[in-house]
C-alpha cells in the first residue's frame, strides 16, 4: 500500500504551480523514489478512468489539469462567469451610489483617473443607469444606480445604504477592540438595550 497517497494527491491538488517531487518528499519526509511511485500510480489511475481531470507531469513538476476534450465546456464557463468587481469598478460604483445624480466628470474628479471604461462596464451590467442630462453647458449625462444595483447588494432601497457616519462609528471601534483581544480589557460601556 503506497504511503501517504492521500496527502500527495491533496498536495498536488492545492498547489497553484506544478509541484516538484522533492518538495513533496520534503514535506512528507519520504524518499523521492517513493513519492514518484505514488504519483505515477495516481497518474495511471486518473488516465485510465473516464475522468475529467488528469495528473500531468510538466517540466517543473506534477499538476492536475482538465482533459482537453472538456475545454469547450470550460470556455462556456469562462464566458458565463458572473460579473466580478475590480477595485476600480467598486470605487466608481460607490461614488455613483453616494453622490447620485452625478456626472462622469464629477466621478473622475474624485477618483483622479479616467473612468470611461468602468462606466461602460457598469452600464452594461445594468448596475448604473443614465438619469438624464445636466442643465449646464455641455449638457453632460448624469448617472445613478439602478434597480439591479439594489438587488445585487440585497437592499430594499437606497436608504439601506449605510451613511458614512454609521460606518465610521463601526470602524473606529476596531482600534481598541480587536478580534484577538478579550473583552475584559476593552473599556466600552455601551450595552444594547434592545430586548428581543
Amino acid at each position, binding site marked *: 500500500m503506497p504511503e501517504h497517497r492521500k496527502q500527495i494527491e491533496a498536495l498536488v491538488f492545492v498547489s497553484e504551480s506544478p509541484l516538484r517531487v522533492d518538495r513533496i518528499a520534503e514535506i512528507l519526509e519520504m524518499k523521492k523514489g517513493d513519492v514518484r511511485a505514488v504519483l505515477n500510480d495516481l497518474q495511471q489511475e486518473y488516465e485510465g478512468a473516464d475522468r475529467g481531470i488528469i495528473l500531468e507531469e510538466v517540466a517543473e513538476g506534477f499538476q492536475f489539469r482538465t482533459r482537453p476534450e472538456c475545454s469547450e465546456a470550460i470556455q462556456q464557463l469562462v464566458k458565463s462567469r458572473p460579473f466580478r468587481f475590480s477595485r476600480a469598478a467598486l470605487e466608481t460604483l*460607490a461614488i455613483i451610489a453616494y*453622490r447620485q445624480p452625478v456626472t462622469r466628470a464629477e466621478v473622475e474628479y474624485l477618483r483622479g*483617473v479616467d473612468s470611461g471604461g*468602468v462606466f461602460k462596464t457598469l452600464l452594461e451590467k445594468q448596475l448604473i443607469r443614465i438619469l438624464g442630462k445636466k442643465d449646464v453647458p455641455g449638457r453632460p449625462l448624469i448617472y445613478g444606480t439602478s434597480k439591479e444595483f439594489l438587488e445585487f447588494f440585497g437592499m430594499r432601497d437606497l436608504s439601506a445604504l449605510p451613511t458614512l457616519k454609521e460606518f465610521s462609528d463601526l470602524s473606529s471601534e476596531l482600534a481598541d477592540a480587536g478580534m484577538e483581544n478579550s473583552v475584559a480589557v476593552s473599556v466600552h*460601556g455601551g450595552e444594547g438595550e434592545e430586548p428581543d
Partner: protein
Amino acid sequence: MAYEIKIENFEGPLDLLLHLIKKNEMDIYDIQVAAITEQYLAVLDSMKSLNLDVAGEFLLMAATLLHIKSKMLLPVHDDEEADEEEIDPRAELVRRLLEYQKYKDAGETLGGMPCLNRDVFARKFPSPELVVGQEDEEMIAVGIFELVEAFQRLLKETSDPYIHEINIEKLTVSERINSILGLLSGRDSLAFMEIFDGTPDRPMVVVSFLAMLELVKMRLVRLMQNTRCGSIWLYPAVVEDDLAAVELGDDTLGYA
C-alpha cells in the same frame, strides 16, 4: 477551595456569572444572589488590584446584581399579591443566562467544525484553463460593506472636500501643456503621476488631465495603459529627429 480565575478568559459578565453559578453548583432557577454577588464583586476587585481596566459591562452587571439583591431583601407586602403574581427579580437574568449559554455552546460547535484553509482546502486560484483573456486586475467579492469602505477610502485619499472651486485661473491648461512637453522631451515615456511634484491637489490633477488630453488632440503625445485602470503612460507621438519610433502595443487607448 481557592483557584484561579482569569477574568480575561471570560467573554463578558454573563460568561463570568455562568461560571460562578456552575462552580457553586447552584440551581439556575434559584440563584443565591447574595453569595453570587459577593463572589462576582471579589473577582472585579482582584482585577482592579492588578490594575486591569474593568470593562463597563462588568460594572453594569455588578449594579444589576446589587439591585436584584436589594429587591430580594424587601419584605413581600400582602396587599401587592392581589394585583399581580410576584415576579421573581431574578427572572430576566436567568433568561439571559440561559440564552447566552445557548449561543456560547453554538459558538463552540462552530469553532469545532472543519473550516476552510485550516482543516480543508480548496483551490483558491484560477485554474490556468480559466485565465484566458482575463484582466489581470485584482478581482474582489463585494457587499455593502466593501462598497462603503471603497467610498470612505476614496474620500480619505482626496485631500480637499468635494467642492468645485473657481480659483484655478492661475493654473492654465496651456501652461501645463508646456511643462508636460518639457518633461517629456528627450524621454521615451512618462507616467501620468510623474508630471506632478509631490501630491497634487484636485485642480492641479484636473488641469493636468485636460492638458494631457489637449496634447493627445494635437497629436503630440499618445496615451497607453497596461491594464484598464492601471497607470497612464505618456509617449511622444512624434519622436524627435532620427530616434527610433516608440514601440506601441495594441493596447494603445483610442485617443490618438
